[in-house]
């Protein structure tokens, strides 16, 4: 069980001219176990910064980020992070990439069956020994997802992992993420600028505004699973979120 709490968080960065920018201002967010949170907003609203604060890759100037009452100040295997460009190690094969976290934490006696299982699950069979540049963008992202999920994290942070993919591959990876979420019941937080994606996956939608980055509204997603991107309810909810984003 994991309970994430973000309380009164501010993050200030210097811009190139030495001026202070409030990247995040007064962020409050509570995430319960098994939720799928979609954070949506235009570029520059600090959504990636928020995700980095939750992972521990970055620390806030003010406020606190806690998991189960423990303050986060550094990255940890219990919080997986999938980067926008996957960041698979180009010098390792797909299989070695997926098992890299297990090797790092468990040494040589890591669960090789688990790795094989996820290779199968993510449709990467036959590509185990390929290097990242030899596979498609969608495969690379599925491998990056597998690399994090194989560590069985309590929280999985997804930083626009579909941002660089074409529309068809994107829908495919979205389905992969949704099924992994349903089956593992891992709490997930997705950062995206794609409204459809946010609605398709999220149980709650966090709408953010830029300069300074603030949470404008947190909306419960009323749509039942399985969701259909073309249903009337979907399109209606989409309009609702779209209206909130037009500021």
């Amino acid at each position, binding site marked *: 069980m994991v309970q994430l709490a973000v309380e009164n968080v501010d993050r200030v960065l210097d811009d190139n001219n030495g001026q202070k920018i409030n990247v995040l201002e007064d962020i409050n967010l509570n995430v319960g176990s098994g939720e799928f949170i979609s954070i949506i907003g235009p570029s520059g609203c600090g959504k990636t910064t928020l995700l980095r604060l939750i992972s521990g890759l970055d620390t806030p100037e003010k406020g606190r980020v806690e998991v189960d009452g423990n303050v986060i100040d550094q990255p940890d*295997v219990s919080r997986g*992070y999938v980067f926008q460009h996957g960041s698979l*190690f180009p010098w390792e094969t797909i299989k070695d990439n997926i098992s890299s976290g297990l090797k790092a934490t468990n040494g040589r006696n890591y669960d090789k069956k688990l790795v094989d299982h996820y290779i199968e699950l993510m449709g990467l069979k036959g*590509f185990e020994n390929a290097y990242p540049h030899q596979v498609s963008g969608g495969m690379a992202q599925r491998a990056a997802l597998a690399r994090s999920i194989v560590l069985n994290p309590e929280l999985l942070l997804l930083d626009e992992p579909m941002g660089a993919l074409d529309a068809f591959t994107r829908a*495919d990876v979205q389905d992969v993420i949704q099924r992994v979420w349903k089956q593992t019941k891992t709490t997930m937080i997705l950062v995206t600028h794609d409204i459809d994606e946010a609605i398709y996956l999220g149980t709650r939608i966090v709408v953010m505004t830029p300069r300074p980055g603030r949470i404008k509204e947190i909306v419960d997603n009323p749509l039942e699973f399985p969701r259909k991107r073309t249903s009337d309810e979907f399109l209606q909810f989409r309009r609702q979120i779209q209206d909130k984003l037009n500021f």
Partner: protein
Amino acid sequence: MLESVTASHKVPTKLVKKSTSQTKYWKPYQTRWNLISLLTLVVAFLENLLVPAQELVNNVTYRWFLVAYFAYLTIVYVAGAVVHGKVRLYSGHFAQLNASIGILLVIQDLLTEKYANIQQPFFVSFAQILDQMKTDHALLLASTWSSLGLWLVSFVIGTIIGIALGLFMGRYRQFNYWAFPYLKVIGIIPAATWMPLTMVIFPTSYLAEIFLIAFSVWFPVAFMTIGGVQSISKDYFESAKTLGFSESQILKKVVIPGALPNIFIGIFTAMGLSFTMLVISEMIGAKVGLGWYINWAKGVGNYTQVYAAIVIMAILFSVIFSLLNKFQEYALRWREKTN
């Protein structure tokens, strides 16, 4: 355990493997050129046999060389004509080059041995060099081994020091702060400059030679390694942290492989410098080695011996170069091919 997640993309398409030999050996196979190249060797043989010589040269070794070369090409061409594949591509690609070598052999033989257009003893025929190599083979072999051993030890030491310093300076700011200014100032000094001092400081000249060669190696390797480490994308370090890597694992699994392309650039730069330093230091201080052999031959005025040592160096250094190149290809096999 989960059920299978991906409905689509179930059957992966086969990885497309580009044939590297096809891009490497791009000249088309032409029987004509293969025959011409054999013909040039026949001409070279007959010319050496029939044209009267102005100078006294033992041509036996040279003629055996031509026969061996001819036999080798015949085998390659026949194999290429019968077996369709890599051998055929190889034989087709190099046919024109082999023909040019045959012509060059004829020309040099006519210019030196046959008509003495260019003067001995400073210019000698290839036949004479080969004969010299045969006569002197024991000493040349010993010299070659000695040079190879000296180079290998020094190069490995220099490379290891260079990589270690480069990795630490690239990775750790504190270390970089204290070490980099010294590296810049000391490393830029040409290794040969230290020669007078090393001869006195080191107890044996062999140690002095190792120092000089290693010194020529460590700086380019260290310098390129620093750049290599600093060019690694921040994303990989952050991924490693979220995947639970310890600092030593980051060093082993991220820093070293990430810097490896640059490390190899450094190693190849250093290789040329190390060959230079090998020969120079052997010429000055040594009692063995190819550099010493050249210096000794110069002393007694036998320039054929100088050429013999040069030919051996050309072969030795080319072999080292291509072995290192093969090693690089293997170590960086994960990189996207640009061509």
